[in-house]
């Protein structure tokens, strides 16, 4: 099973990786810290599952050493590209936020889930709310992964 973790925060990436490793046997895990890196990897077309953060930087770093601006709905854009390319890769959103606003569009996590369900099925498979100081998110993620892997 080939899984890509799209996450720019090191700590969260490691925690998600640990959950994947403990849940899925015979798994090949890759990581992408930005929208660009994620898209570049996904479009190669051989991934089974993408664990996707919703808010990600477009690039890893700007050339002047500053961090690339965060794209609040970058994860949704990745999903849109997957759907546009008519790929079958499954996607689970793993986000720390339960509220999103890019200045133009504000949505609660519940609203976002509804929108993702409506527009990105069957690629979109569910959302897990990550909390850094808690393990509460691990089981739901694990369950989703198990279900997905079975269906592959």
């Amino acid at each position, binding site marked *: 099973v080939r899984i890509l973790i799209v996450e720019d925060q090191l700590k969260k990436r490691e925690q998600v990786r640990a959950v994947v490793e403990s849940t899925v046997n015979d798994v090949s895990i890759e990581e992408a810290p930005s929208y660009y890196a994620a898209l570049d990897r996904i479009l190669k077309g051989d991934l089974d599952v993408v664990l996707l953060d919703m808010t990600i930087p477009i*690039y*890893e770093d700007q*050339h002047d*050493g500053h961090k690339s601006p965060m794209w609040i709905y970058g994860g949704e*854009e990745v999903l849109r590209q997957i759907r*546009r390319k008519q790929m079958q890769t499954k996607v689970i959103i793993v986000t720390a936020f339960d*509220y999103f606003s890019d200045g133009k569009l504000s949505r609660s996590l519940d609203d976002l889930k509804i929108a993702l369900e409506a527009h990105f099925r069957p690629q979109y498979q569910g959302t897990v709310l990550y909390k850094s100081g808690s393990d509460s998110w691990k089981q739901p993620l694990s369950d989703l992964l198990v279900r997905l892997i079975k269906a592959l």
Partner: protein
Amino acid sequence: MSAAKGVRQLFAAVAQHDYERAEALWARPEVRERISRKAFPQNYGQLTAVYETRQPELVDELVGQAFIFSKFSEKLNGLLRLKGRFYACVFASRFEDARNVLAEVRKSYGWSLWQVESQFALNYELDNHEENRKLIERLIETSGKSRSINLFAATCFLRSGPGITTHIYRQLCYVIERELRKVTGGGNDAEYLRYSALVWNSPVLDALSFRAVVVSEQDAALVDRYRTFVLALNRFLADSVEGNTPLVGKLLSDLKDIEDPDLDKLRFVINEPISTPASQLLASADEYLAYLRSEPRLQAHAEEVVDVDRLILQARAYARGLLEHGEVTTLESRIVKALAQVFGRATEFESAVGALDAVLRRYSMAGWAPHLFSAVTAETNAVPVSIFHSRIAQLHGLTAAVTNPQKRRYFPATISSLSSAPGDPCEHALLQIYDLWAAHREQAIDQVRRLKLPGVTGAFIVLHLHASGGAHEEVVGTYVLVSSWSEPYYRCRGLVLVANSAIELGELGLACKVIWELWQDNNRYLGGILWTRLLQDLLSLDQWPTMRRSPLLAVVLHLYESKYGLEQRRVISDAFQDFLEAHSVRSALDLPANAFGDVAIRGYFLEHVCTTDVMEGTRYLPSMRAVEAERLRICQAIENQFPEFEARARNEIRSILEHDLVRRRLKTLDEGRVYVDTDALREELFATLKERFPNVRDYLIANRGKQLAIEFDALSRDQGRLMVETNPTLVALEPIYRLVRDAFVLSKRFGMNTYVSAEMRHGMVEAQLKSSLLKWGLVETSVSASGRGAPSWNAQISSLDEQGRRSMERAFERFNMAITKIVTDIRDDLLQMKLQPDVTKGGFALEIRRENLDQIASHIQPQTSTEEFIQMMMIHLWSITDVSLARLRGVVDKSIRHVATSAFDQLIDDVETCAAHGDVGALRTAVISARADFEGDLSVVVKWLQRAQPDNFEDFRFMEAWDTAHEMIRRMFPNLRFAVTSQEAQDDRSFKGFGFRHMVRVLALALENVAIRSNLADPEVSVSVQVDEGKLTIRIVNTVATLSEPQHLAANADLDRRMLELQSEHLSGVDTEKGSGLPKIKKIITSDLASDCEIVVRYDNPSSFRLELQMSTDQVLV
């Protein structure tokens, strides 16, 4: 408040468009009573005494007047009833009764243009020209040559003249206008007359100046003002501007108490509920129609045609100016009549539509068409004509719906006879050919071609005849035909039709091609494209693959975006990327010329589509740097290959390079902010040590390896003299080592402490570490901030229950304390100089150590010169500093980061705990985001903690330093939106490169001052620089500074005193990092830029703070 005052305030509120207040005043019984008690204001001037038009914009005026008229509904209803009676009498040829009605109007409502006009018309109808002459005399006698009477006389005379066509009428209007100008010397009358001519008798809307109308009608009768209002409302609705219809709906709702069929017709048009039954509304025109039919001038024609065609004839007559003395009522009656025919006599459908179309065109009321045709469609269950955009297309749609052969009986035997008929043959041909369509399609095409119908109608017919076959070739054939037309108007309209047909047929490639051509021809016509359908199809997954090889997909999406705004701009990026992929290239510049087909498309694609925001995030460009480099290459290609875009491309290239330069310079400045001016120090130290060092050197050499016994007086007599063994290094070298070290660290002009203070401790480290917190609203910008709460989130926190609120307030207090401690620890401890071993504070460990002295001593040789010693010391001190910096970086990167992360984690926990007390989702997101950004801010500070690289900046212009400083501060205060205006010196001289760093620091300090002290989210700064007689003057004006609550300062004296205090505050704080920074600016200018310096700070007024820096130019200018 007295009733009279209330009434005055009411109209004053209306004049200021403060309708909330106006309604509040109207709600007062005494005000209502006074207004209703007062006689009806016959002259509008009676209102304008209190109601002075502020900005006579059409929308404001409509709203304001609707408000006023709504308050006189009872009186207006009385007038309208009389008006109705008058017309009823006229239509029934009961002219004496009509005259009596007018007399009643005159008695009850005073002189009005409408009443006088009607009187004239009536007299004319009765051939009573003598009566009209008397009327004019009486008017002039009554009012002399006053403005309004002149208007009455002139207008009524013109309107009542027999056989005056529109053309003659307008000519006469201009003659009268000139005459009036001679009499009155002013423009109002002339404007009014022009307005009258235009609005009532001419289809030219563009020249209409509503302001002129309002101004010239200030003294008009309220009756006329109301009539103008209704007319303007009609025009306003006819404009078809988005938002007009809802506003008209609201105004009509405000005027619900006025029982005016004219208003009901408007309601009818915009599908608002109407109080009058529709049937009654429609039937009301019958009498008037009968009246028109009785006109002698129409009778000759009337005999020639059947009943329904007579209406068309009348419309034609109308268009040719034969029915000039009617006015808007006539027009509306015709429209309503046409509708009545549609509803009542379905077999006359085509004629009704034709008549309707004729009158709409006559009055340039195309904007009405969608409403009216929609109404017709709704009644007839016809096809949804709204799918057509042009009026003619809608007409066509309606006609197409008529499938009953019985309805075709009105078309003439041949098209030829139609073409020779008076009027517009195309419109009729449309109707008739359409009937031929089904049975005689080829014949119809031939006929249309033979007739060479020039207009859009012809195009439409041909197009639809072709398209009805549904074949690609036929649409293309029509496209070729339309493209060949030389008349731009017809060609563009035809292209719209071709594009829409292509869209309907799913020929998206062709549609895009036609749209591109249309854009090149005249982009005004793009509004007629079926965009919704096109975008839906273009972006569908089915169509996308077929379009991806064409640049037109991205181009058309961009055209739409630039004109109307796309909901999802990323689709342009998708189209761009797919286009490249389809041609297997990684850069737009590598696309072969044949991929575009047309060189103009390539130009547009490169200039407008291949922009940084489109290319950002696309494949093949893995970083923002790559995106910008690609854009630069593209601009260079545009500059070379497309002369028409050359200037714009050159500007963009310059802008990109400048921006890049700013960032590179900023990067240089950011990577290392620890600096000592060692060259200057060497010079200074040499003067001090040149005689002293040789003695020390010789002593050290002579005593190297020896222990010295130094005698001291014993502390007590018993002990006698005390012998202490020591190293000669300590005795001889330590004093000059200390001297050099102190200069290295503490020299006010060149030392490290000064630079660390100016570049980091003074506001910078705090600003950098708080920039993310500011961005996410977790702290305040201002120096006066309490530092306790999360200002942007107060509302959300307040919405929590009591327990949650208290809990959150405590959490933020803890968090702010933690962040403040971090800032304080860095600024007041880590970034301080540690010069004594027993001092605990200071991250720059530069205390004197025995091993350091030994190390230096070991390197001193007999031939070591003073210069070499100083150089040796510089290297030595820098190496110690480097060790400190490495340790400091570690402390900030690890310990401080850990503390900060803990503080954020704690806050996130606190926020999550509060979720039980209310919605904190957005706040939680802000805190988590701020944590991520804060980590980046810490990394920036870590980068500062490096030795600054020797400057090798090139010579620069002032604005380059300004832009760099601006960018630096913008990053530190991301939520502040500086509005910067600049006025560069005209001579545009260059500054020496060595001064770049210092100039940037000066300007950054000044801007930081504005950011911190303006208390504003949108500070406005103006900067100017001037070189004059060896003096460089930089003026930085904070144009919207807020002097603390000046309104509370009782007198001017207090204000002056407070301003002086604030000015002196700006000059305080010389030795701390908490002041204004002006002493540091002075230091930088005098020491680093080696210039004389004068600083002037003052409040020009309470909202404008000026900082003026003056320096000599000889050291800084090239």
